[in-house]
């Protein structure tokens, strides 16, 4: 005679402790995030205003706004995205659709991408300085400007290209995963209808990988808005009286401005609320970018699932 179905103590204890542990971990993360946000807003609230967003810094950074930093960040991120997305997506398409999985060349590319992902940001900054500013820059000046020093110095374009190289692995990996997730029978269906491989990739595979590609792009953009080390030597400036208007201009940057305000202020007390307000703007920018990404991705997925 066996006992009726009674709850086993061991099972219940294991289930509950796992539920509690994972719940606590989640709560911890939310608490940390909440603490950061609250602290930032508390200290910077007094300075957050429309004027803050649209004015230049004044009085040695102890007053005024951060408009040039916002413009510079947007310009940097825009050029970086134009540079990184086509190249990153093309690389991912090659790895996923064209290369054979085990050839030496493919493996070499993967090793390169993985190593690139592990390089510290400041090393990218030094690379950008040595390669773009001091090598490509003078070459461009010699051929296009007859030796006049236009590009052989820190510039928006060099900082953007350095950031593009830094964020390339992210875009490649996110795109490749999205491409791999598409089942093989969709490609076969397209080919069986007499499509070329090119048509199959661009009319069936890449459109369906859209959300994944967007994810990679947003991750890249978020880093572009916040990373400081790679742009320190390649284009960003402490203070500029005018906005960047050419690819060869230098620019101000939100992440770098935070660093500047924190370490190089003549009056720490006056600067502190400005510092926190800048951080608040930077966080707000990152959050809204991610939110926009979530919304666009959800819409893309709905469009794929529902119709065209």
């Amino acid at each position, binding site marked *: 005679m066996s006992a009726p179905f009674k709850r086993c103590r061991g099972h219940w204890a294991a289930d509950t402790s796992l539920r509690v542990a994972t719940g606590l971990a989640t709560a911890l993360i939310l608490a940390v995030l909440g603490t950061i946000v609250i602290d930032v807003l508390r200290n910077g609230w007094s300075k957050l205003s429309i004027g803050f967003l649209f004015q230049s810094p004044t009085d040695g950074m102890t007053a005024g706004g951060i408009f040039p930093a916002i413009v510079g960040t947007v310009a940097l991120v825009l050029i970086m995205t134009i540079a990184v997305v086509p190249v990153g997506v093309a690389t991912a398409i090659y790895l996923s659709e064209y290369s*054979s999985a085990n050839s030496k060349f493919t493996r070499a590319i993967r090793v390169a991408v993985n190593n690139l992902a592990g390089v510290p940001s400041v090393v990218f900054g030094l690379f950008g300085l040595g390669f773009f500013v001091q090598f490509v820059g003078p070459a461009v000046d010699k051929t296009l400007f007859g030796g006049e020093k236009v590009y052989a110095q820190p510039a928006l374009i060099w900082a953007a290209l350095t950031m593009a190289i830094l964020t390339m692995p992210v875009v490649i990996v996110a795109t490749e995963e999205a491409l791999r997730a598409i*089942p093989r*029978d*969709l490609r*076969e*269906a*397209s*080919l*069986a*209808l*007499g*499509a*070329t491989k090119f*048509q199959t990739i661009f*009319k*069936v595979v890449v459109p*369906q990988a859209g959300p994944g590609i967007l994810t990679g792009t947003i991750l890249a953009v978020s880093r572009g808005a916040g990373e400081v080390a790679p742009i320190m030597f390649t284009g960003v400036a402490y203070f500029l009286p005018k906005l960047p208007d050419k690819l060869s201009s230098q620019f101000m940057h939100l992440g770098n401005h935070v660093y500047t305000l924190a370490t190089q202020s003549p009056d720490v007390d006056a600067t502190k609320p400005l510092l926190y307000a800048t951080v608040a703007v930077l966080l707000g920018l990152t959050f809204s970018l991610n939110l926009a990404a979530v919304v666009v991705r959800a819409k893309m997925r709905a469009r*794929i*699932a*529902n*119709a*065209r």
Partner: protein
Amino acid sequence: MPATDKPAPKMTVKDLSVYYGAKKAVGPLSMDLPEKHVTSLIGPSGCGKSTFLRSLNRMNELIPGCRVEGEVKLEGDAIYGPGIDAVSVRRRIGMVFQKSNPFPKSIFENVAYGLRIGGMKDNSDIAGRVERALKHSALWNEVKDRLSESALGLSGGQQQRLCIARALAVEPEVLLMDEPASALDPIATAHIEELIHELADEYTVVIVTHNMQQAARVSDYCAFFYMGDLIEFDKTETLFTKPSQQRTEDYITGRFG
């Protein structure tokens, strides 16, 4: 082995062998596929019938390491050979797969896909061909009011008929079907079988099936495969009632499966 009053062959296969790497999977075998008739390929699992089918429209090339030797001709035109474009082969020889694979697009765009990539631009031409294809695959009445809805919202049987319509829209000469009803319920299966009957009026159909009764119901000619070899090819009625090979008889009577 072939029947004496066979109709003209639409496709001829001569000494075809298919290799995966060093291992020979199918052949060598020769076969004539009669025009505007349904030919079924039967045999136990792993006997090479799907591999053979896929070599008729060069879909085997998608598998790395796969090699084809021998000759396959569509109405006298060789489909293998240097300089012969697989893409144009597949426009004349269409395929429907075992598991329906509609694109995550609208019903209309699914059927129009083959037309658009083939270069057709006129929207009214496309709409006309889409309607005709959907009527041919007995799906028009069920979807005519929701052509812009996603194809993924259709039932399994409807999706398979959509895939058939998609293949028919480009007006191929031959339609290859790899176990088209094996993933479907009996009612949907019956629809597909009825459809195959009608399709044979205009197209040459080659269908792989692991269901012997389906082969008996649906096909005019039947080829029995075993372990990569073609054992017997004859009119379906003859093969099922008076097979000339012992192994065929063993398979049909269920002595092995």
